[in-house]
């Protein structure tokens, strides 16, 4: 069931004081659009990296929603991560078309290589729309095709383990 940010969030440090003000500005700016909550949350993640627990009441107040509503939406969607991002991120496609071209191997190698790394996140995704040139994946946000373990190693050369 869809109940995930990436992993159970550890008790987060309290948000820094300037943060609530930034979140308020974002929410107020987008308040007028129809169904504003998703655009607001996207903007929070884009500018502040993730959705902090303390952002929820601020957004709820500005959009005139209950905290439970906002919390429910944050937890439903993968994109609204609740922990700060690591320095690097690799998202690998595990959709069928990429599996047919060996994606599971690339995924296993990446997951193994960075399983203990605090600096690199490895995430699974299901289809990036690059299904004729798989295995597909993004490396720090840039889409790549034909992503064999070797090519991934080349693209991430010099990264911490």
């Amino acid at each position, binding site marked *: 069931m*869809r*109940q995930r940010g990436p992993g159970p969030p550890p008790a987060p440090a309290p948000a820094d004081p300037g943060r609530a003000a930034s979140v308020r500005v974002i929410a107020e700016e987008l308040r007028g659009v129809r169904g504003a909550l*998703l655009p607001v949350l996207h903007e929070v993640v884009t500018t502040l990296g993730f959705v902090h627990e303390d952002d929820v009441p601020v957004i709820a107040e500005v959009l005139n929603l209950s905290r439970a509503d906002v919390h429910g939406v944050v937890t439903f969607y993968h994109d609204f991560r609740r922990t700060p991002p690591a320095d690097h991120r690799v998202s690998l496609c595990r959709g069928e078309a990429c599996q047919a071209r060996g994606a599971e191997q690339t995924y296993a190698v990446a997951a193994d290589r960075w399983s203990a790394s605090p600096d690199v996140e490895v995430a699974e995704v299901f289809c990036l729309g690059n299904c004729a040139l798989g295995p597909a994946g993004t490396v720090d946000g840039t889409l790549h095709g034909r992503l064999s373990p070797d090519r991934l190693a080349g693209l991430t050369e010099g990264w911490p383990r």
Partner: protein
Amino acid sequence: MTTVWVPCDAASLSVGADEVADRLTAAGVTVRRNGSRGMLWLEPLVEVETPRGRVGYAGVSPADVPALLAGALDPTEQCVGIVDEHPWLAAQHRVSFARVGVIEPTDLAAYRELGGLRGLERALTLSPEQVVAEVTASGLRGRGGAGFPAGIKWETVRTASADVKFVCCNADEGDSGTFADRMLIEGDPFTLVEGMAISAVAVGATEGYVYLRSEYPRAVRTLRRAIDIAYAHGVLGESVLGSGRRFDLDVRVGAGAYICGEETSMLESLEGRRGEVRAKPPIPALEGLFGRPTVVNNVLTLASVPMILADGGEAYAALGTGRSRGTQVFQLAGNVARGGIVEADFGISLGDLVEGFGGGTASGRPVKAVQVGGPLGAYLPPERFDLPLDYEAFTDAGAMVGHGGVVVWDDTMDAARMARFAMEFCVKESCGKCTPCRIGSTRGVEVLDRIRAAQDDGVRRTQLVLLEDLCTTMTKGSLCAMGGLTPMPVRSALEHFPEDFGLPASTTEGVRP
């Protein structure tokens, strides 16, 4: 001065098109950016303008640029000749994709020159009833999966009365093995804008939204740019092409949830809520976005509309077979030698697609199976390559055309593992609203694990009975097709590849425990 075209769609960029474009610019040639032609195995496919036409060079890397400009690639296999005459393209019938890969995606003048906006202009001279009648006459059916007649849906919205009506384009394209929506938006976005404007004129809508998945950032950017240009030229806004009719269009970005491709879940998401599926009725055509009458159509459905209005519904209906009219944009993906976009009239056989266009597997091994129609679609063996691509023929074969994705597998595929994956995908992507889907899929993973691990036949048989029970419960008891169709890949895998489940091999009659 030489002009060179380098594609700028996400797939081409994923294999280095930008680096090639940079190198060409540095070499002093004029670089123009087109969408992809859809011959994805050739990307980056660079095209040099010549008096004979645009000559293509496949798999160009930055290091190839000096040789390319010196003509040294001409005698090599990298040179594929005049691109428009390429047999793979010439054998297709490009209607929705006619301009994709040919023009700069956001060049409105080029769009007009190649027939763009004729459909909208004509629609504005007709009454709303007449516009809907053209779409009905065309036989156009929804390309998002369910194949519902577009004309009937539009007529329902048109005759509903409300203070405001909406047109929503479903560009969530979550099915693995599909990328046509993305390529159309990145290669010829005005076709979608025009299709939505025609729909708005027909049903009396004043606001439109494109729900575009966040996995497609390039498409988001291209479409936003196209919409800005359309506003600046009066194609959108308070007076569409000077008609005095208002239509506003906006892009909304999804947030990484497969289920938001289901239309009611998409509407919930557009309203700013969890993407939980709504029970139907009420149907979205009557109570859709914010409870108002709403057209929800897939990108390819809406992108077929400009041509239908420009050339008339009859012209479109003349293409295709049976009750599947017009063309379908197939997407060849996975382990296939020549993957990409094949737009063809309905009725082409599965074998012609996979072997004719696709050229078999990329690995060079025999084809074992193809999965048609996304993660909820059936696995079919080469024995079924005679099947014509037609909604009804596929339904009769226990399969579905869906959004037209065809994923090819070679003989190293393990069908039991893929059946388990189908259940696992359902566990991950279920919206959680109903039990057969939410719990059934979890049980399905466990049962399939036991079947795959079974050492003795008795255990295997008992578990297979359980699996069949589960599939029946999910099919009959799920609120939407997520839970309702997950059994399709599972059952078809078992039917056609029983040996992967530890059962005796059989013919296509299959083994039903």
